[in-house]
């Protein structure tokens, strides 16, 4: 299927996202966990901590050390993905870690570390966005103090059109792929990567669209978190 004037490869409108799904509390033994899905891109994240930092020399006497691992399951891609870290996964781990470090109140846990593990179960573009969204949910669920959640989605340029939430063929055949991580309360972008060639005007338009998308994602994250403790509201609790 080709892209027409008003529709995309998969029949979506240019500013339409895939189906979104967010969940929390799936990993029994972790302190917190989250799940996020863009269409058929699925990510799960688990948070452990704060815990003592190992190895010791990584401990920072002023703030918590954040450990983040992004990993793609071998079965997440069309051809088997070779297990183990790669150049790509190390890079993604780094940028997501930095985006999350910007919102976590790291000063509350000097010398300790917070460990976050994100696993891509199914990959069809925007996996780093899904991982970041799942990790935000997991952190909040783990009771880690943070200034806000980070919401993330991608925009791209396909056949000269700026599109929201790049998927499938658009990722491989598109001209530009631009994922962002956005913090609504501060109106700040903590993650922005881009490849391809784009004009200044197009970039501005793309960014605006991405922020719009992130706000939708953010709503999903909030709903997922409120859902798990819904029964707690208006209950009598002893002191």
């Amino acid at each position: 299927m080709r892209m027409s004037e008003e529709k995309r490869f998969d029949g979506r409108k240019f500013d339409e996202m895939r189906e979104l799904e967010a969940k929390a509390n799936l990993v029994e033994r972790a302190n917190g966990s989250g799940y996020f899905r863009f269409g058929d891109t699925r990510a799960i994240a688990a948070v452990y901590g704060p815990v003592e930092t190992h190895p010791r020399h990584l401990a920072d006497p002023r703030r918590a050390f954040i450990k983040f691992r992004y990993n793609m399951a071998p079965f997440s891609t069309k051809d088997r993905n070779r297990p183990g870290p790669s150049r790509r996964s190390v890079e993604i781990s780094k940028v997501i870690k930095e985006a999350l470090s910007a919102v976590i109140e790291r000063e509350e846990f000097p010398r300790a570390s917070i460990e976050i593990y994100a696993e891509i179960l199914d990959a069809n573009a925007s996996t780093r966005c899904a991982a970041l969204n799942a990790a935000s949910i997991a952190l909040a669920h783990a009771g880690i103090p943070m200034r806000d959640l980070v919401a993330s989605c991608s925009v791209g340029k396909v056949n000269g059109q700026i599109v929201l939430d790049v998927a499938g063929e658009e990722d491989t055949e598109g001209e530009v792929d631009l994922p962002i991580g956005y913090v609504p309360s501060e109106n700040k972008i903590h993650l922005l990567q881009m490849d391809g060639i784009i004009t200044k005007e197009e970039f501005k338009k793309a960014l605006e669209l991405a922020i719009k998308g992130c706000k939708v994602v953010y709503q999903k994250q909030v709903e997922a978190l409120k859902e798990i403790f819904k029964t707690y509201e208006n209950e009598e609790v002893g002191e």
Partner: protein
Amino acid sequence: MEENNNESKLFVEDRKIVVPGEVLAKGIEYLPGHDTYKINNEIRSKILGLVKIKNHLINVVPLSGGYMPQERDGVIGEVVDIQPYAWLVNINSPYLGYLSLSEGVEEFVDLAKSDLTEYFDVGDVIYAKIKKVTKRKDVLLTMKDKMCRKLRGGTIIRITPAKVPRLIGKGGSMVETIKEKTGCKIIIGQNGFVWISGKNISAAAKAVLMVERESHTTGLTERIGKLLEKELSNVDKGDENE
């Protein structure tokens, strides 16, 4: 227009679930309490939790997460290491508790003659009070408080620290019920460690875990009563069979 900007406003009701970054109130009339922060004249939550509003002070109570040591908390811990003049205690948090010799023992100790293991050895379980938490999160413990002692025998179970208030119940009602029905001794540390000792440990432990699991459902006290009756009658039957 200017008056409008300065007006204080509350955005949430008491006992509502909020997420990190959610705006709780704005204006100078409200004060940011526990686990909240103020930015651009707005009070926002830092954590996922329940809002508690006391007059003008807005707090958020956590519903999940590990234990962070706080001054005056009574905690249960296990001695994991001994230093020349102190014990290091695992208190279920990322920071070890530090129990110095002078805070751990009342009497004069001549280290030339005696050994610290005579008082507390590695593996011993103690109930201690947190005397101070420094800015770099050194946790100083003391045994010089009521109830503080070595806990001999019994069993330790771990529950989510956020559920400790529910296990204690209003004025200690919940834990008193379990103690009364099972005849067990139960000590609850604020850090989520619960020490149980006595004859019906398994029944008491089941009740404690039930409170943790179903902490925020109605009619819990009654269900705990039923569970204990069932558990205890099983024990009686078991005795008869023997």
